[in-house]
């Protein structure tokens, strides 16, 4: 049974047991979650109506200002893309955003279930973002659902290229350890990484763009034995409280 599951997971699909459980349980659970969210939103809306109106007006004004820049950004992106094509470089990742809701969280397995799947364009390996930063990567995909392996998962394959933002930025490999601790390994044992440094994605990947916040350095250790410098990073996303995410395609 375990081998069956593992081979399905490696192939990026739900195993038969998972597929049955998700269709029997995940679908009604998603409906209940949506209904609860609506009730919660209604109560919050009634309770905070005056401040929400003010906030809404302010956000509309900000949106109008931002819209003026969007055309310029699109033009620049088009220009970059055509220059990359001329240079024979691959297209940049993370252009399309697929909004999604979290419909299941399994803390012991470091996994989230999302309500979007291959029908919405989700593919294995795509990065998943919350408002505060990177959440993880899509591990398995079904038609209408997918599962995310969280960044904090200690699975050996779960590594992301990361930069500690200093001048110049320090590149390393980041892996999960626990929900409150990630490990950034820098190949230079004398890398001047310090507590408080912001860590973001490096972009040295076909799918994960550069600059997505990951967390902040909370501790730095020298690992002389392996000629490396290790930094503990506190993730910027509280994995257990994420409810809305975006899949970057």
């Amino acid at each position: 049974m375990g081998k069956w599951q593992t081979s399905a997971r490696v192939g990026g699909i739900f195993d038969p047991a998972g597929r049955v459980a998700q269709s029997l349980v995940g679908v009604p659970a998603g409906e209940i979650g949506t209904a609860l969210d609506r009730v919660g939103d209604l109560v919050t809306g009634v309770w905070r109506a005056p401040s929400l109106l003010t906030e809404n007006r302010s956000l509309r004004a900000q949106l109008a200002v931002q819209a003026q820049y969007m055309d310029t950004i699109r033009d620049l992106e088009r220009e970059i893309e055509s220059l990359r094509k001329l240079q024979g470089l691959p297209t940049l990742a993370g252009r399309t955003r697929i909004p999604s809701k979290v419909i299941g969280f399994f803390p012991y397995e470091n996994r989230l279930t999302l309500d979007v799947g291959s029908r919405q364009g989700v593919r294995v390996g795509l990065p998943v973002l919350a408002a505060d930063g990177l959440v993880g990567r899509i591990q398995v995909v079904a038609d209408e659902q997918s599962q995310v392996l969280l960044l904090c998962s200690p699975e050996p394959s779960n590594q992301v290229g990361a930069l500690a933002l200093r001048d110049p930025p320090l590149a390393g490999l980041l892996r999960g350890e626990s929900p409150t601790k990630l490990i950034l390994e820098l190949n230079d044992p004398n890398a001047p990484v310090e507590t408080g440094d912001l860590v973001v994605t490096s972009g040295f990947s076909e799918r994960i763009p550069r600059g997505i916040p990951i967390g902040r350095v909370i501790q730095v250790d020298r690992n002389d034995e392996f000629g490396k410098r290790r930094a503990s990073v506190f993730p910027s996303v509280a994995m257990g409280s994420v409810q809305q995410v975006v899949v970057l395609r």
Partner: protein
Amino acid sequence: MKRGPFTIGVAAIMWTAAVLHQALSFRLVIFGARPDLLLVVGLALCLLMERRQAAWVGFASGVLMGAMAMANLASYVVSRTLTSYGVSYSEELELRSSPWGAGAVCAAGTILANLILMFLAPPPLIGPFLGATIRTAVYNGVLAVPVFLLLRRALGPLHRS
């Protein structure tokens, strides 16, 4: 109660518990404690059943949980089947008449299930896992009191063979 309707009733209860677990458990976090609704309902059911039935409920609970989480099915199935079988032994403590006793057994059962799981599928960090287990056990124990009362009323007077 006849066997057929009873089995269907238990299956419906387990399915409802699984749906509620997936929909609610991550919305009901209190002080970092997350309830395991499937385990609460499964263990409360075991208190109302004979041992063999309890083992089947544990098996179903393990399959459902493992499949939903895309986790190793075998570890969840073994840990929950053994725990459910063990919990059904608390018959000798006459806990069926005491909801508070049911709460205590569910809390202990949660710890036992997670300890077995810990040996079968060791987590990377034992300390945080045990901390989360204890918090979940307390939460499950509190939730088990009304769940047990509800199930006892819903399933009627069951008799162990």
